[in-house]
């Protein structure tokens, strides 16, 4: 571990990317175990689970930034809840 100290990794960053990696691994497993076909949602474009995950993640990033900019850093769980609701909506309707 000592020889990577110069990269100044933090456990928070590690946790964040571990989460992303876990999501990607889950998606890969799902793709192998339960193959799917594209569907047309409210956006009228064909989307797969991967597209919906991408939209959820990018949207969540914007939601968190907007929350941080408008409400400040004290109640970031609000942004997290909002993001989860948004992701749910994306997976349900897009």
């Amino acid at each position, binding site marked *: 571990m000592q020889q990577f100290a110069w990269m100044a990794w933090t456990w*928070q960053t590690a946790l964040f990317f571990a989460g992303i990696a876990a999501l990607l691994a889950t998606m890969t497993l799902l793709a192998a175990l339960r193959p799917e*076909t594209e569907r047309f949602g409210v956006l009228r*474009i064909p989307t797969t689970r991967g597209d919906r995950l991408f939209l959820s993640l990018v949207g969540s990033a914007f939601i968190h930034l907007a929350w941080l900019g408008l409400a400040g*850093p004290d109640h970031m769980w609000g942004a997290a809840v909002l993001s989860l609701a948004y992701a749910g909506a994306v997976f349900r309707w897009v």
Partner: protein
Amino acid sequence: MNKTVNNRAWLLVLPVFALVAFSAVLPLMTVVNYSVQDTFGNNQFFWNGLGWYQELLDPSSQLGERFYDALWRNLLFSGIVLALEVPLGILVALSMPRRGIGVAFALVIMALPLLIPWNVVGTIWQVFARSDIGLFGYAVNRALAPLGTDFNYTQGVLAAWITIVIMDVWHWTGLIALLCYAGLKSIPDAYYQAARIDGASRFAVFTTIQLPKMRRVLLIAVLLRFMDSFMIYTEPFVLTGGGPGNSTTFLSIDLVKLALGQFDLGKAAAMSIVYNLIILAACWVFYTVMVNVGVERRALGTPTAGETPPAEPASAPVIPIERRAA
């Protein structure tokens, strides 16, 4: 045609995976990592949490102010550039010859600026627009002399913006013209003959035949130009270096000033992430529109999969021009 399925073939992808991880994924993770820390040099880092993001998004802070300024400036630039280049490109495409020896000539002339490297374009205009030795700058100054004003892009904000906008128009209108020309070329002669029989005016031909046929390439052109102008760095950097003051400091120029000029890694990383997110969202729209611009029409009538799609409208012959253009 017997293909054997062997999933061990995936192992052959591993070297690429390792290479991309080393050259792209890990550096990107490093940026995220820096964006939540602060350093005063000596490779010592201190946890700052969301501090940089908060500062970046707060217009009353110093960092936020310059970020929003650069962002609006950049959006304004993209808007101006699009508003000028798109109509001009269409006009040029409409007046380019359809057949004969002029076609090759016009194509080469239109493509020439696209072949010049960005920093050379910047240098060309840096000299061209100078008031002492540049032809453009000298001529404009001579013309303005009776009015008592002068044109100096190193001192006047308006002059700097005008020079940068003209430079971008000079550099990129050719692209839009070429794309539109490709769209125009795909219109069968029968359409024009029918219009002539109906006695359609030149304007009617444009609005009912040419413009609808150019819709797809225009979409590509607008999105391409937006992305490019939103990420512009080299040309304004060479021409004005972001000045006078900060008046032409666009996002990428500001980012480099922050990261390499001041070595504020944390602030620069946070700004990179937000900038990257905006680009990512725009890219997604770009990609989605490009891929679905033909599909969309068909999907409109079929909300559920399984239904047979309605017959394609007659106006949708497959012209994969946007694929080639991309």
